[in-house]
């Protein structure tokens, strides 16, 4: 292990927000996760004729009008709209925005924003490439750049709320949401910020992105039964199901939260980050990078594997990830693996948002003492004999949770979340 337990400022979570295929907010998403039913369905927003994959886990009936004026919405890609709405929920819960009461008076130059995305505003980019090809160069929208740029969501959240600390987005593909939380942890520990709005957003269910993910063999092709397609760790899994949505957490220095009397949901106690340096998309089958990552996160939190109450695995439902992750978990936890779930069976894979949404679900599960089951898990064939939660939610004692996220590029991120009182 290369990380000693941190002795720096403790970092707590004072708000969470999520917009996902499983719900319009964090509590609804958690409730749907507990039910263990997939949310995948045929794509309804464009003609999928000729596409090898014609379904996804979509955010349907998304209504940002309570947060974004119609005029502004025209200028903001769906990915950032999802991020803004999730941020509003998290900041409202933290008492820093909206709601019935006046937002808490805090120093907004000490608030940072790190809300990332795997691919940014690709819906707008794809539309505008079509505009250029079919109608000409001078028909391209002047709004394309601010709508597609990968940092748009962080900039827009800062703009809306007047947060003037550092604001940026990072890019580690499907680990981006988790790495943003880890980077936020470091910003607070180092004293650069008192509050960090951290998370991820994604809206990449576009014709070209779907074709590309399908062409690389990453997606399930179970078009005849979308609800059974996302089946993490199941023997019959054949790829991930593309999802969309956003997850945002308000991270706050524990002393700062205490001083203003904020309600604490839990603590971000540890973060691990490694790279496989094995292949640009395939995980290292031995899971060495994932093992080191989980061990880093536990050491950072000052915990041993036996302290972990449950794991929210990356568990994409691809043959390669689930086998490598299971093996890595067995190496970290030995014979006493804690109850493990992958909520992607329900939500699909939210790419750059997934790490943030799953950190939220892991924290809510740890707080509730109830771990959601893995949807569609019937029979497993993964190595390592980890303790997968099947069919029904599993009751656990209040204990720290570990959430894993792994991204194309070989990026690994693990977070340790401790429910308040554990």
């Amino acid at each position, binding site marked *: 292990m290369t990380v000693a337990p941190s002795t720096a400022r403790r970092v707590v979570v004072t708000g969470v927000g999520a917009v996902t295929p499983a719900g319009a907010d964090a509590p609804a998403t958690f409730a749907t996760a507990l039910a263990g039913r997939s949310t995948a369905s045929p794509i309804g927003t464009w003609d999928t004729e000729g596409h090898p994959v014609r379904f996804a886990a979509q955010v349907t009936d998304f209504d940002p009008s309570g947060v974004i*004026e*119609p*005029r502004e919405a*025209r*200028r903001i890609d769906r990915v950032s709209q999802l991020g803004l709405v999730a941020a509003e929920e998290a900041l409202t819960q933290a008492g820093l925005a909206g709601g019935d009461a006046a937002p808490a008076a805090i120093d907004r130059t000490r608030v940072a924003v790190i809300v990332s995305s795997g691919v940014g505003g690709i819906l707008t980019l794809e539309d505008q490439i079509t505009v250029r090809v079919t109608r000409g160069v*001078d*028909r391209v*929208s*002047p*709004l394309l750049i*601010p709508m597609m740029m990968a940092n748009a969501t962080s900039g827009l959240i800062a703009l809306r709320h007047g947060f003037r600390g550092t604001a940026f987005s990072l890019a580690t593909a499907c680990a981006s949401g988790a790495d943003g939380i880890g980077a936020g942890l470091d910003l607070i520990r180092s004293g650069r910020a008192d509050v960090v709005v951290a998370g991820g957003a994604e809206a990449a269910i576009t014709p070209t992105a779907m074709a590309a993910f399908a062409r690389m063999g990453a997606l399930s092709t179970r078009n005849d039964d979308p609800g059974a397609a996302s089946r993490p760790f199941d023997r019959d899994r054949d790829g991930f199901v593309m999802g969309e949505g956003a997850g945002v957490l308000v991270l706050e220095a524990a002393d700062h939260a205490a001083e203003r009397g904020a309600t604490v949901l839990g603590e971000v106690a540890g973060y691990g980050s490694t790279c496989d340096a094995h292949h640009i998309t395939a995980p290292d089958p031995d899971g060495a990078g994932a093992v080191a990552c989980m061990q880093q996160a536990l050491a950072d939190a000052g915990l041993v594997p036996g302290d972990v109450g449950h794991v929210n695995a990356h568990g994409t439902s691809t043959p390669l990830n689930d086998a490598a992750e299971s093996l890595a978990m067995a190496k970290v936890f030995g014979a006493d693996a804690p109850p493990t779930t992958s909520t992607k069976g329900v939500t699909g894979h939210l790419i750059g948002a997934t790490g943030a949404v799953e950190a939220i679900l892991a924290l809510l599960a740890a707080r509730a003492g109830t771990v959601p089951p893995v949807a569609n898990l019937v029979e497993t064939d993964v190595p390592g004999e980890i303790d997968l939660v099947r069919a029904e939610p599993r009751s656990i004692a209040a204990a720290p949770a570990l959430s894993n996220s792994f991204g194309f590029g070989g990026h690994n991120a693990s977070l340790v979340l401790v429910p308040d009182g554990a």
Partner: protein
Amino acid sequence: MERTDILDAVYDACVEILKVDKAELGEGTSFAEDLDADSLALVEVVMQLEEQFDLRIPEDDLDDVATIGAAADLVASHLAAA
């Protein structure tokens, strides 16, 4: 093409793009001051007019367009030249 038709098209573009009430608009309405429209929004409004009237208006011509009346004049001059 009557000037009132052009003005009407500018109003419609403002209603659609800037989400404003048509009843609030007049020849003297300022994009920046009255409608809080930035330069990107003005480009969008003019793009819609270009589309509608099948025109190509150079970006440089937008520098002097501060009001709805000026936008209508710009379209009229390009229509006359077309």
